């Protein structure tokens, strides 16, 4: 009897634990009509590289401050005010930089709400004279002198006007040695000085012609185009400005909780936004995806970033999933190709390794279809001049791969270290490296998986001590890359030293018109593909899940690095 009682009690305690671990959770509030995955109805992405608008925009006169989005009120009507909160859970808060020059593009989601850019753009990849502080710009014929005219009536959060002095101050900071933002190195190399002509006009003098300056100072570039308040900086000083910034964007910083949250509060009215939808926006750091999904189900957050795998669960639970396609590019790096004793210096070996990978299998089964196979690594489909036909994807042909290894003199294979780590926004990375190692083992290479941290591999990579090893890189898709970083002989993280490739990289960098830039890019891509310099894999999508009543996210398929374009939810 006692045994029976004990068994019954034990079952009552243990069984729910087991069932709970196996069963799928149901949401607390399930819509009666489950909402399918929605694609954005407006501002859809195009597959070809964007053509930036003409070097000078067509606006003939400065544009007045943008009128509010709402209809003109009757004398008795009260203008709408932002209300409510949008809570966005993310697995990381980038480097938590609030100052445009102190962090990479991973900080764009909140910075793009806190600041206005000098040059405006549309999410689809065009420059826009209506979207930035400059309503007009033009360059000299030799592309060395750029003039920007600023719109009237824009103020910082404290009500002080945005002037040319603030723009000059911001640009000077962006190219200073203290700047560690994504595009600062590129701009430091090209910008000579910034001149204030009058409170509404600045001139940027370049050291050399640079075709893409306007693009780099827009949301299509990095964060260097974000304008900060010079007066406020001088008042609070350098150290305090890092956590007490001042911008002119539609949202001001409400509170910064290091490692936990970045909280913003809407201005009642903004020249570009009109009246924002939500009074407050909270970026919450929730590292564990299961927790994020539980919070979404419980209504504690409104939007989460979700992995490819997690998107399946939230969709089944009736929440909406929005996709930003081709947000980043994943490729394998065959490092130190100039070392003649390294098997990876042999083109046939690299080609064999590329052909041994079943990319479709990985996309279907690991990435749940949320990726697109690509034939070009490091550079994504948004890049100026990107031409898919110049670098077609590799076919999966293990037999051919073995043959190539034999022709290269490695019939018996060779030892290869496969470094496995995770970089931000791509939790599947270690698993994919493990799978790649198995593909390479199948063609006779003795692939040894080396689980490590990205920081550790990055050091070896920079020090050129990887040896016979490969790593992987997940780079954000963008319109203009610093191509010499990985592909130039003098690049700090270069994988190859090839003077022919250097020529193509240089040709793109110094191109003075789009035709030349596009041509140089096509030739570069073709060369990289023909010589198997990189191990291209996929362009992967960023996914976001939202509560079920958010049915549309304008501009989600945008061409901004690391930026989900929350504007699409926050603008009326």
């Amino acid at each position, binding site marked *: 009897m006692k045994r029976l009682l004990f068994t019954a009690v034990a079952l009552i305690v243990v069984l729910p634990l087991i069932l709970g671990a196996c069963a799928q959770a149901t949401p607390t509030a399930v819509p009666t009509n489950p909402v399918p995955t929605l694609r954005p109805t407006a501002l859809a992405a195009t597959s070809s590289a964007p053509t930036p608008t003409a070097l000078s925009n067509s606006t003939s006169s400065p544009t007045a401050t943008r009128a509010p989005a709402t209809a003109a009120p009757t004398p008795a009507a009260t203008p709408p005010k932002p209300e409510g909160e949008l809570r966005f859970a993310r697995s990381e808060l980038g480097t*938590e930089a609030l100052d445009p020059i102190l962090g990479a593009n991973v900080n764009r989601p909140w910075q793009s709400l806190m600041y206005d850019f000098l040059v405006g753009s549309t999410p689809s990849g065009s420059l826009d004279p209506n979207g930035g502080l400059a309503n007009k710009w033009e360059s000299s014929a030799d592309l060395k002198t750029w003039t920007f005219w600023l719109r009237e009536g824009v103020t910082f959060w404290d009500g002080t006007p945005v002037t040319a002095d603030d723009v000059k101050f911001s640009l000077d900071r962006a190219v200073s040695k203290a700047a560690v933002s994504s595009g*600062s190195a590129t701009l430091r190399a090209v910008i000579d000085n910034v001149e204030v002509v009058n409170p509404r006009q600045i001139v940027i003098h370049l050291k050399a012609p640079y075709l893409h300056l306007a693009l780099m100072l827009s949301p299509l570039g990095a964060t260097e185009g974000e304008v900060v308040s010079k007066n406020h900086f001088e008042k609070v000083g350098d150290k305090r400005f890092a956590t007490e910034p001042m911008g002119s964007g539609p949202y001001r910083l409400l509170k910064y909780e*290091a490692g936990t949250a970045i909280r913003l509060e809407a201005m009642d009215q903004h020249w570009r936004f009109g009246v924002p939808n939500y009074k407050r926006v909270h970026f919450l750091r929730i590292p564990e995806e299961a927790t994020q999904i539980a*919070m979404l189900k419980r209504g504690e957050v409104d939007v989460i970033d979700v992995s490819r795998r997690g998107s399946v669960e939230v969709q089944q639970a009736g929440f909406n999933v929005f996709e930003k396609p081709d947000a980043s590019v994943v490729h394998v790096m065959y490092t130190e190709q100039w070392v003649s004793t390294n098997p990876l210096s042999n083109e046939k070996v690299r080609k064999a390794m590329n052909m041994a990978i079943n990319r479709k299998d990985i996309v279907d089964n690991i990435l749940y279809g949320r990726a697109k196979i690509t034939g070009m690594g490091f550079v994504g489909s948004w890049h100026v001049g990107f031409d898919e036909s110049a670098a077609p994807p590799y076919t999966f042909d293990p037999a051919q791969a073995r043959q190539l290894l034999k022709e290269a003199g490695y019939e018996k294979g060779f030892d290869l270290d496969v470094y496995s780590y995770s970089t931000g926004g791509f939790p599947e990375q270690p698993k994919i490296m493990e799978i790649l190692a198995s593909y390479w083992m199948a063609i006779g290479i003795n692939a040894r998986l080396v689980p490590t941290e990205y920081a550790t591999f990055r050091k070896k990579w920079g020090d050129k001590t990887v040896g016979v090893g490969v790593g992987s890189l997940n780079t954000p898709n963008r319109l203009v890359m610093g191509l010499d970083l990985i592909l130039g002989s003098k690049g700090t993280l270069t994988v190859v030293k090839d003077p022919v490739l250097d020529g193509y990289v240089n040709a793109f960098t110094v191109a003075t018109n789009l035709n030349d830039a596009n041509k140089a890019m096509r030739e570069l891509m073709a060369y990289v593909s023909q010589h198997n310099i990189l191990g291209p894999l996929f362009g992967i999508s960023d996914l976001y899940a939202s509560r079920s009543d958010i049915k549309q996210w304008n501009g989600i398929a945008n061409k901004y690095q690391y930026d989900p374009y929350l504007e699409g939810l926050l603008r009326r």
Partner: protein
Amino acid sequence: MQRYLLGRFLQTLVVLWAVTGMVFLLGHVTGDPTLLALPLDATQETKDALRHEWGLDQPLYQQYLQWVGNVAKGNLGTSIRSRKPVLDLVGERLPNSMTLAMTSMAVAVIIGIVTGAASALARGRSIDILFRGVAVLGQALPSFWLGLLLMMFFSVWIPLFPVSGAAGPLNYVLPAITLGWFVSAGITRLVRTGMIEALSSDYVKLARIKGVPETLVVLKHALRNSLIAPITFAGVYFGVLVGSAVVVETIFAWPGIGSLAYQAILYRDFPVMQGVVLVIAAIVVVTNLLVDVLYAYIDPRIRYG
């Protein structure tokens, strides 16, 4: 007692120096924070400038001595990542960890003592088997799994408690149970063992013979004398709960010092790493000292000095 305390204080300083020195060295040899703070295309000039700004271009011993000197003045440095003073960061997070640790410990002690005593009194019976089984489960179940399970049951399926954060009293329940169950398991077993030993001792037999009520025998004589080992266990684990609840803090997005330390290690934020280790080490050492002093109160046979 004063000599004892002075000796323990000096020991504390040695321990703190050894721990922080080790963390300093290990942290610096495992990676360069500039690699993670800078974009891929940062020039060598930018890297050198940043290393100089952060003092990383100085010899290691000089960096360490500088840090020690600053600590002596109450300055734990500035976070490389957030640009906030480390003291501010620790000050924001430590109360969250302390309150969670205290709540978890309270849960653990209450459950542990009650179940341990009940187990001892019902030795060999079904209650004893059940509570010992629960204790084993508590030590065997991985905390991340338990936390996720509790979250699923009591936040999503039956929405009684919030999933994350430290906003109010309800936020403490699930993390405290997750943390506390593991510790309660150890306390249960120790109380049970101690109680069984005490209940079979001569002084308890004498008390019973003298007609002392059983409740008093159990609570005043047996239980009190069986608390020394559980107190040591709880004291040691309090420090662990404060500083090492990384998994639970991650699961429940609890803004505590454990997740701060983990992030600091991940991003090679050396000033935060060292500052947090110093604070956690100090808490552990002080907690152990308090436990030792408490001994003397519980067991008059123990004297120091």
